[in-house]
């Protein structure tokens, strides 16, 4: 017979082990990348143009390109996603139509990213004549992360207590004033979380940008939203699988840079979220 005490210990050990198994790969990946990539990364690696067909020099244009793509994605995805979430949570009547819309958004999240890439190529690059450009890539990535942004934002908007809304409306505020001044500030933390998860994904995706934005090798910075650009994930893909004589340090360095960039974005978002929480004075 197992005593209640033993059951308790067994249960605790099981859940602790499961957590450890989850943590371990993350630590291993980060540790491995850090160990291998740290030697490759230097100031000149981060700030110089690639040389000798990407076998030497730095990855500056890829970093800048990824930053541009991420910024462009934010510009399109945040307003679209947040407004759509507000519509779903606040304005759309409780109807079958809304359920269908919600279901489509959830299912969109499961569409493979390469499909988004082809969709973006067909719509933005070819049909709308944006060409292979930051604009086309940003729009494609924005569509890729919209489901995440909408789902998180809707959840955040919905979780704002009804009593806040009623308090505002009872003072004669319109629904939009209530949304803008009471609901959104209180939902901001959740919205930012969703956006960051989405943007982290957008920054690391290769497939959606390889047809729509990313250049194989472009030793200069993009000059306008209609220029194509290098990007970290695509660059990594190229040096790791398309070029057999690229030095390993180039690959590790690029991978670590991408990881640090995404981590930095998450950190910034965490800071913003903390600030919002303080401003809410709960």
């Amino acid at each position, binding site marked *: 017979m197992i005593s209640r005490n033993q059951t308790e210990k067994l249960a605790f050990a099981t859940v602790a082990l499961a957590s450890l198994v989850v943590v371990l790969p993350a630590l291993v990946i980060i540790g491995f990348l850090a160990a291998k990539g740290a030697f490759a990364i230097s100031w000149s690696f981060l700030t110089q143009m690639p040389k000798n067909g990407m076998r030497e020099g730095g990855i500056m244009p890829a970093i800048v390109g990824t930053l541009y793509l991420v910024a462009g994605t934010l510009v399109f995805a945040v307003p679209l996603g947040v407004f759509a979430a507000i519509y779903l949570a606040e304005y759309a009547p409780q109807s079958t139509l809304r359920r269908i819309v919600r279901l489509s958004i959830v299912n969109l999240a499961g569409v493979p990213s390469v499909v988004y890439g082809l969709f973006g190529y067909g719509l933005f690059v070819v049909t709308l004549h944006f060409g292979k450009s930051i604009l086309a890539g940003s729009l494609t990535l924005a569509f890729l992360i919209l489901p995440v942004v909408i789902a998180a934002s809707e959840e955040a908007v919905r979780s704002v*207590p009804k009593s*806040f809304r009623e*308090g505002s409306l009872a003072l*004669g505020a319109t629904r939009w004033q209530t949304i803008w001044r009471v609901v959104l500030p209180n939902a901001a933390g959740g919205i930012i979380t969703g956006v960051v998860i989405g943007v982290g994904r957008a920054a690391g995706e290769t497939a959606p940008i390889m047809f729509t934005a990313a250049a194989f090798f472009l030793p200069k910075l993009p000059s306008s939203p209609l220029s194509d650009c290098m990007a970290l994930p695509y660059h990594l893909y190229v040096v790791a699988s398309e070029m057999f004589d690229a030095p390993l340090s180039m690959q590790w360095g690029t991978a670590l840079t991408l990881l640090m960039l995404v981590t930095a974005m998450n950190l910034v978002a965490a800071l913003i979220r903390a600030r919002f929480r303080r401003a*809410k004075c709960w």
Partner: protein
Amino acid sequence: MLVSVPVSISEAQSPQPRWNAASECVCGKVEVEDLSLFYGTFQALRNVSISIPECAVLALIGPSGCGKSSFLRCINRLNDLIPGARTTGRVLLDGKNVYDPDVDAFLLRKRVGMVFQQPNPFPKSIFENVAYGPRIHGVKNKSELADIVERSLRRAALWDEVKDDVYKPALALSGGQQQRLCIARALAVEPEILLMDEPCSALDPISTGRIEELICSLKEDYTIVIVTHNMQQASRISDYTGFFLMGELIEFGESAQIFTRPKDKRTEDYVTGRFG
């Protein structure tokens, strides 16, 4: 079922009856005529008619789910926001039906303030809470806002407790202070009527006492309708009382009469605590 005819205000000793020159009749601030409310197929209010006298306190009593809060929310049209809610009948505010299509529900709610059961200050500072209403109605001038905030907090008997710290978070206040803040927030948009939905049910007896004092002082300037489950409270602070049961207004009259000589057997059972 019979709905008791509202006691004409002219029978009351105080306040003084107010004559409406246009219709040559004695009218309350709010005249509710034959009001029914439906949530989908469920009928929450059945042909309620009541005359709410100006500058007096009307208490609404009755068991949970009898329609008191629903009735309150008909007066400021907060029920509009509930999908499937619809009303029949009329709610006349100063003679104008608030359900007429040309009535702006947002402006109506500026005239008809509301205080909720659970204190619901916004998670902002005390100042921002009170300034919220004036701001959404277009007051931008900083010193004007500060004036309104101070005046409203004074009127809600909260100023002396918070005057040194109006920028601290509203949620750091005690429950009773939060409820007075909510009253101040409602007063800041200069309403004519205050609807209070069990404003003391989440408060301790001391805080409740302070809110009751406040209500008695506010009735000089405001028409107050308060829902309460506390019979002593209703008899202490109200001038008139209405008793609701299953969506019907069973009896309405001066509080002294309702609590001492109720005309309806059901009212008597309820106010004496013999109700199931």
